[in-house]
């Protein structure tokens, strides 16, 4: 049933084959523009209008075996590589966020068990998931939202059982799901050790002891089952306890480190889709006697969007690999990713909508109104699994450690190098290494000087004609200048955060501003690390248009320029000659579209020819 040549663990070829999984799911799903396929754009739009759950599409994903990837390999599933998982979820999200979220939520629901459950619990849950059962996460309550310590749903010990009372609200798949990991207050006084996670099987509850709440009408992902569940003294077996009594909050926070990283896949998919739609539009649309893509302002907007997307991809890929190689630092990695990627993707989609103008606002004129749907759907990504405030607050709470560690070169630089080295096999993920605080700092930021060193050396070689074959003399000069500016910013940010002690969550706006800047520095460091560790392999051995992005530091220069622009403001970034890099990026964007490849740092083919044949025959301009 499942074609699986992507999960091999045998060394050197893994970097190439890792992406086969996402490609295979693409092949299976077929061309989404073809309304005859099950998982088509047309159907997703129609379901959204009717606010209907994409049940048939989800059944197709079940049949292919997507749920296998929600279950870690040691518990009987096929999940042994979070980078692969990101690409898989991204492929689904690229078609439709309601599906990706409605289906992928089972991983979220189960993550607490993967992190803290017994082997037996995990194997049993794994079997259920592989059999197509939905699992949801019962975390939030009507009155408290992200304030988990205020949770009121009680799990009172009653002999060998727990008696559960109270209401969880705005829960994905609360109604459709069979199982539910539930954060319950097991000590009446609450507190950090006063909550426990229970794995509740609704089918085992007395029918009159719980009821599912109505589906909530939402701004986007309108077809999703966002509802709630209310318990009235529901009797749950003591065996449902996940982890030690009182460990619930810790378990949930650790599980969220994983899911927050996976959320980046949802943003990448939405960004991929919006960029493609806007690109097709501006290459076709004629205004003022020009195709829009010929207007310098439009070109600049598209190129900036392309660079933003690659920056987000670099960060997401690094973070996904960090699950395996920087497990102790995920409290930082996940907060950076979950804040930055959705926020930047919201802005990206808004910018691309503006290029499309009225047709992004109207529903049936261009691409069935898909852009407004992506915009509405994606706004949820910044909200769930810990919203922007929560993630920035998480960074603020770690300021002191992060700032001081940076000054003394702390952080697991070896783990970061392993995260960056795409060709290397990933060690197995060890959930017991998860920690609520990155005690030794951030390896990704610690790697910054080394990465810049690699770039500096490569730049020097290229000055004297000793660079990569076919590269222009001095072609890395600009990227190096941008990297050095990033280092200055990182120094300043760390110097300032090292001395701060902010109350959380009641921190001052300056702390939030610094957390934002910290996240941007982190993203820049991820771009540099990824480039430094892979440029030779990708530029020489990579496939398709992705290979060209690595030449002459093209993507790196553009992505760093974007990071600097966001860090310092557009007028405070010295000119490093990034205009040429953006121009090359735009050409690669068009070429990838014409060849049916994903615009990505990595070689990923898409299902179906994607540029309109007619347009290509007429020579669609770029």
């Amino acid at each position: 049933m499942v074609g699986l040549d992507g999960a091999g663990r045998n060394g050197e070829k893994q970097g190439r084959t890792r992406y086969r999984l996402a490609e295979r799911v693409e092949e299976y799903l077929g061309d989404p523009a073809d309304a005859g396929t099950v998982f088509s754009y047309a159907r997703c739009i129609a379901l959204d209008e009717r606010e209907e759950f994409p049940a048939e599409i989800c059944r197709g994903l079940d049949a292919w075996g997507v749920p296998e990837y929600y279950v870690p390999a040691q518990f009987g599933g096929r999940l042994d590589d979070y980078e692969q998982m990101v690409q898989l979820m991204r492929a689904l999200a690229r078609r439709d966020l309601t599906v990706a979220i409605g289906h992928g939520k089972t991983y979220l629901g189960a993550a607490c068990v993967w992190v803290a459950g017994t082997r037996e619990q995990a194997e049993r849950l794994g079997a259920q998931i592989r059999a197509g059962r939905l699992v949801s996460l019962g975390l939030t309550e009507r009155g408290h939202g992200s304030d988990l310590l205020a949770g009121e749903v009680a799990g009172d010990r009653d002999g060998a059982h727990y008696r559960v009372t109270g209401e969880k609200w705005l829960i994905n798949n609360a109604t459709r799901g069979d199982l539910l990991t539930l954060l319950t207050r097991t000590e009446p006084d609450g507190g950090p050790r006063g909550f426990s996670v229970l794995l509740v099987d609704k089918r085992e509850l007395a029918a009159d002891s719980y009821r599912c709440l109505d589906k909530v009408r939402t701004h986007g992902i309108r077809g999703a089952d966002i509802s709630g569940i209310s318990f009235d003294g529901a009797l749950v077996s003591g065996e449902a306890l996940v982890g030690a009594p009182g460990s619930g909050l810790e378990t949930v926070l650790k599980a969220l480190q994983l899911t927050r990283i996976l959320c980046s896949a949802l943003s990448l998919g939405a960004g991929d889709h919006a960029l493609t739609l806007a690109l097709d539009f501006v290459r076709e649309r004629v205004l003022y006697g020009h195709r829009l893509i010929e207007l310098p302002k439009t070109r600049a907007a598209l190129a900036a969007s392309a660079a933003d997307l690659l920056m987000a991809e670099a960060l997401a890929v690094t973070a996904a690999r960090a699950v395996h190689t920087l497990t102790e630092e995920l409290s930082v990695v996940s907060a950076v990713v979950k804040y930055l990627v959705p926020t930047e993707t919201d802005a990206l989609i808004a910018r691309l909508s503006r290029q499309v103008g009225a047709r992004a606002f109207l529903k049936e004129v261009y691409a069935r109104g898909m852009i407004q749907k992506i915009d509405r759907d994606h706004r949820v990504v910044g909200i769930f699994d810990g919203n922007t405030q929560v993630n920035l607050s998480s960074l603020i709470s770690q300021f002191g450690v992060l700032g001081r560690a940076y000054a003394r070169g702390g952080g697991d630089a070896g783990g970061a190098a392993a995260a960056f080295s795409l060709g290397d096999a990933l060690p197995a993920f060890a959930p017991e290494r998860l920690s609520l605080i990155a005690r030794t700092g951030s390896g990704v930021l610690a790697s910054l000087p080394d990465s810049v060193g690699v770039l500096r050396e490569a730049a020097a070689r290229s000055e004297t004609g000793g660079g990569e074959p076919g590269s222009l003399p001095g072609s890395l000069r600009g990227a190096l200048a941008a990297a050095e500016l990033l280092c200055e910013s990182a120094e300043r940010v760390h110097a300032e955060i090292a001395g701060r002690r902010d109350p959380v969550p009641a921190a001052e706006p300056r702390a939030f501003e610094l957390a934002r800047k910290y996240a941007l520095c982190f993203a820049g460091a991820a771009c540099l690390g990824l480039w430094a560790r892979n440029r030779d392999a990708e530029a020489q051995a990579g496939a398709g248009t992705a290979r060209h992005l690595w030449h002459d530091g093209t993507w790196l220069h553009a992505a760093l320029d974007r990071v600097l622009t966001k860090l310092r403001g557009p007028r405070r970034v010295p000119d490093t000659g990034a205009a040429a890099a953006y121009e090359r990026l735009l050409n690669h964007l068009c070429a990838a579209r014409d060849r049916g490849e994903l615009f990505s740092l990595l070689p990923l083919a898409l299902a179906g020819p994607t540029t309109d044949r007619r347009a290509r025959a007429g020579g669609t301009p770029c």
Partner: protein
Amino acid sequence: MLSETTTQTTTVVEPEAETAQEAAAQARVEQLERGFGDPYDPDNPTGVHALLEADEAAEISEAGEALLDEVGLNADFVPVQLGGRLDRLDTLARVMRSVFRRDVTLGLGYGATSFMAAIGVWTSGSPRQQRELAAALLRGEKAAVAYHELAHGNDFVRNEFAAERAPGGFRLRGAKEVINNADRAEVLSLFCRTSPVPGSRSHSVLMVRRSELDPARWRTLPRYTAVGVRGCHLAGLEFDDHPVPESALVGEPGQGVELALRSFQVTRSAVPGMAIGAADSGLRTAVRFAVGRELYRGAVMQLPQARITLAAAFLDLLICDCLSLAGTRAVHLLPEETSVYSAAVKYLVPKILNEAMYELSIVLGARFYVREGEFGIFQKHVRDLPVLSLGHAGSAACQATIIPQLSRLARRSWFIDGPAPAELFRPRADLPLAPVDRLSLASGRDSLSASLVAMVEDLPSSTPTERVVQGFALRMMDELRQLQEEALELSPKDRTALASPASFALADRYTVLLAAAAVLGVWYEARNGADAFLADPSWTVEALYRLARRLGQKLPEVPPSCAERVQEEVLRRFREQRSYDLYDARLTV
């Protein structure tokens, strides 16, 4: 509102004195607020629950339309000389703000569309056309502005809908698309190609009556659905060689583009100020959430970041209102200069409002995403507001109006022209009728920036806060000088559609500078006035801080008391149900 150049003398009015114009404006706002009633009363047919339901059903609120009929809102779009109430554009924006505060769909679908359709007739129509349109509007009929063709969008000079010469008049042929109220407006203002020659002298505007059309030769095309303003009747019109008499022509043949550009100066100045109402409701909803919501053992409102975000949104609304005020009053006081100001208002105000809504959505967290219940109206405003940046006055089109004028302003106006009259900045001061014949497509003068330069000399500096304001003013003046240098270097190519991103960035900065000038001007005029909040420079400091940040300037330290003062005001206006704008209007009457 309109006059030929006869009534030019501007009478200086003391800001405190409540004039007849001011009393009438206040009474009109109160009448609307009273009519709309308590937004949170679940039984109120024009409350948030009913409006959300109408939006869900993609219908314009019937109760809302009935109320506006009863109030006779159309009179606000008809000049006083023609029997209506329209005497001032700033008042129109202020009154319509009450409607937009409730519902953008009603604001546009009932109101602003008719005004946009009418303005060309008020500026260029014959006395007979003006009387006819005034009578129709005062009877409660709607007018539609049928300019848009999907194929050409902002590039309306290439529109194809044709009015071909025929004996006794014209024959209409072609389609107009995405026209608000196309399916129900009695009066249609049609932008038609009257010559096949490319360029700007080939179009004319015709005014036709729906009831006089031959059903066999025209039809309404199906409604479009959109993500926002779902209740608006956005439809198309199709004509098949339909004859219309010569008398349908508005203004001279071939004058269509010029007429449109002149009309845009009025609508671009006025409509964004109306939309401030929607963002006011967005802010009010977020404050309601923050005050009522407990997180981390305290109200959200106690979190500094939440307080700052709400105050920032309030400041954004004040900034938008200052620019909108200067823009609307300029149509009366500086008609030659409004080409640039109106484009600046239409570009910057919707942009700031949409950004403010994004920031507010973060305060609301998951509640932003819920389309029902107490806070469900918020996402509706988020979906509705972007409509303001579309259509024939899109953001890029507005920047494109500004860019070609920058180098001329840099050469001939900045640091040379004298300042604007003080009345430009006084929200409650009387205005003369607007001399619409003096609206000019490009003037090369900019008194608003000149006011900024003049104020640098004049600003008080006796308190630390006042000195901070003065410091900001100096920075803004430096910014203008820098802008001047850069504008002088623009190449001729930068004056076309092929303008560089840098020239668009220059236009963006210029609009922010104009907003800063307006903020300074409003405070300068208010500092001895009756409104204690506007008189206190705290809001000015905070507003200029935000604008300086938008410009990427190095930011100075500012007294913490300024932010506190603004935050208190956000809460006061929430508790006392006062508007989040320059008027501090009572919202429950």
